[in-house]
């Protein structure tokens, strides 16, 4: 969408910066690398020797160990900044980036600061606010289903239990369990209208690592197995449009208790297959950035402005 038919103007690609060089940051860089409309302009970390910065440099992208200060010091603000640091740092990053005109901040941490986005639920339009929260991996995996169930049935309670492989759970994830739980519960409630929600996260050290999984338990008095399966299958099909490894493993209804087990396998150049937790949240983040790029592109086409 960055290419306009008006050949008298040159539309520059949408520039993005990634802050945070853990597994999630590395996968973001590789997904930006794959994207036809996003141009990685800077990858910022704090340790020059980190694997994340080396990976970005190998792909030919500018890197810095200057962290958020380097992002702020850029001569022209980036169109999109991905925050792949931690929930505690995010609020400060937003405070610093907020004054920059035109920068969209996309938050991969469970900070609960920005506008919640779940692609199949909040739609494919560009976000209306300049700070967008991707909630959490468990939120991205479960909310498409919990939202669909709540639309179809009178749901009384929702509980989401996710299990992440230990080898892919970095220090920020481990320190942010409280934020993960609070933000995931809050988002499930917000999108389903069900007040009584619970989120649980397990970290599994099994070897070989198990694929990321999310179990949804719901109390639904009038559910039938066939009706639940149809709703869940439809929701999953829509998620697979952008996260190909998203699968329903089991779906059972016993009395008023519904259990839906989901697995997400990663489709990534850098992540192992089992790291679907990172793949689904990053795929959603890239989708948001691409929608933003499309909006910038069409605005440029309308005005004929050179951005």
């Amino acid at each position, binding site marked *: 969408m960055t290419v306009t038919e008006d050949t008298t103007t040159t539309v520059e690609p949408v520039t993005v910066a990634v802050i945070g060089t853990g597994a999630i940051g590395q996968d973001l860089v590789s997904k930006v690398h794959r994207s036809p409309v996003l141009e990685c302009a800077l990858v910022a970390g704090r340790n020059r020797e980190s694997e994340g910065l080396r990976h970005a440099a190998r792909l030919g992208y500018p890197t810095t160990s200057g962290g958020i200060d380097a992002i702020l010091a850029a001569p022209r603000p980036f169109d999109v900044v991905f925050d792949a640091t931690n929930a505690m740092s995010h609020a400060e990053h937003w405070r610093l980036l907020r004054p920059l005109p035109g920068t969209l901040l996309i938050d991969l941490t469970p900070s609960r600061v920005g506008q919640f986005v779940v692609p199949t639920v909040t739609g494919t339009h560009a976000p209306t606010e300049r700070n967008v929260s991707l909630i959490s991996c468990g939120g991205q995996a479960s909310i498409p289903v919990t939202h669909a169930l709540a639309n179809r049935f009178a749901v009384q*309670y929702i*509980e989401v*239990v996710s*299990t992440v492989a*230990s080898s892919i759970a970095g*220090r920020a994830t*481990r*320190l942010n*369990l*409280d934020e*993960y*739980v*609070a933000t995931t519960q809050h988002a499930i409630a917000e999108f389903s209208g069900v007040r009584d929600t*619970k989120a*649980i*996260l*397990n*970290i*599994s*050290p*099994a*070897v070989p690592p*198990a694929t990321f*999984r999310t*179990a949804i*338990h719901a*109390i639904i008095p009038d559910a039938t197995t066939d009706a639940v399966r149809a709703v869940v299958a439809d929701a999953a099909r829509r998620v697979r449009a952008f996260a190909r490894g998203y699968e329903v*493993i*089991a779906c*059972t209804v*016993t009395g008023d*208790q519904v*259990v839906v*087990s989901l697995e997400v396998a990663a489709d990534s150049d850098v992540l192992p297959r089992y790291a679907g937790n990172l793949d689904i949240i990053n795929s959603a983040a890239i989708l948001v950035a691409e929608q933003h790029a499309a909006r910038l592109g069409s605005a440029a086409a309308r005005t004929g402005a050179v951005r």
Partner: protein
Amino acid sequence: MSAVEIHDPTLRDGQHAVRHQLGVAALRGYAEAADAAGIPVVEVGHGNGLGASSLQVGRAAVSDDLMLSTVREALRHSRMGVFMLPGWGTSDDLRKAIAHGADVIRIGVHCTETSLAERHLGFLREAGADAHCVLMMSHMASPHELAEQAALVVGYGARAVGIMDSAGHFLPEDVTERIGAIAGAVDVPVIFHGHNNLGMAVANSVAAARAGAGILDGCARGFGAGAGNTQLEVLVPVLERSGFETGIELYGLLDAAEFAERELMPAPPVTGSLSIVSGLAGVFSGFKPQVLAESRRAGVDPRDVFFELGRRQAIAGQEDLIVDVVAELSTAKAIA
């Protein structure tokens, strides 16, 4: 004689055996009896600890707030203990427990994942609480790894650290080796928490004391998941005969156990066939009620389910795997 401190999680770990359904009268009655016997620490809560009431493991009959205020009121001398699993409970739950007067706060983590406790142990250190850290499913790590992890949590702020034999898998020599390694790596009291799947809980606890453990867990009548925990009223006199002082009064202890048998449980735990299998398979004993229910529904052998869960290295908290394993075994059966 050297001293050992007894920590009694009857009103927390026992909850697994009754699907977390202990009521207020039972909580109050047992806490009063344990207090009268001079048991130093009485732990209370949902079986998986603060904030863990859920469909995944069972919803509690009584809220955390009511459980804690009930037991607090009942204890005059004993200290009140609580338990919390990061990812299940949060710092908010810890804050509330402190406000309710919890004296000993245990953070439980899978034995190789102690970095998950860093934040909460740090929070408890700031709050000045007596923070313990227990490494669960400890048969899944070597003595050396356990010692390394124990040293880490002491660095995070734990004032005591130890292991839970969550699957009841250990033999006494396994315990001696592990407790010895941990005691050599830290300068805080070492905890041992036994399960009785292979009939070894008391013997394992004595081995732990001899290897340097300073805090031992036991439950009245062994009240706990599956084959139960270390039987407290057996453990205490055995420790005394072995030369370890507990400070607990024997008749009071026996009375508390009588109360527990009468008011807390339909029947005391036995080492049933399925508990032996879960001990051999190295799977958390607390999975038993759900394994039984799901296996019956699908017509598969629950023993096969336990061995398959063991093969998948299921850890405590992963009850959602049971449905998958049962479905898979049931499909395999239909094909065969």
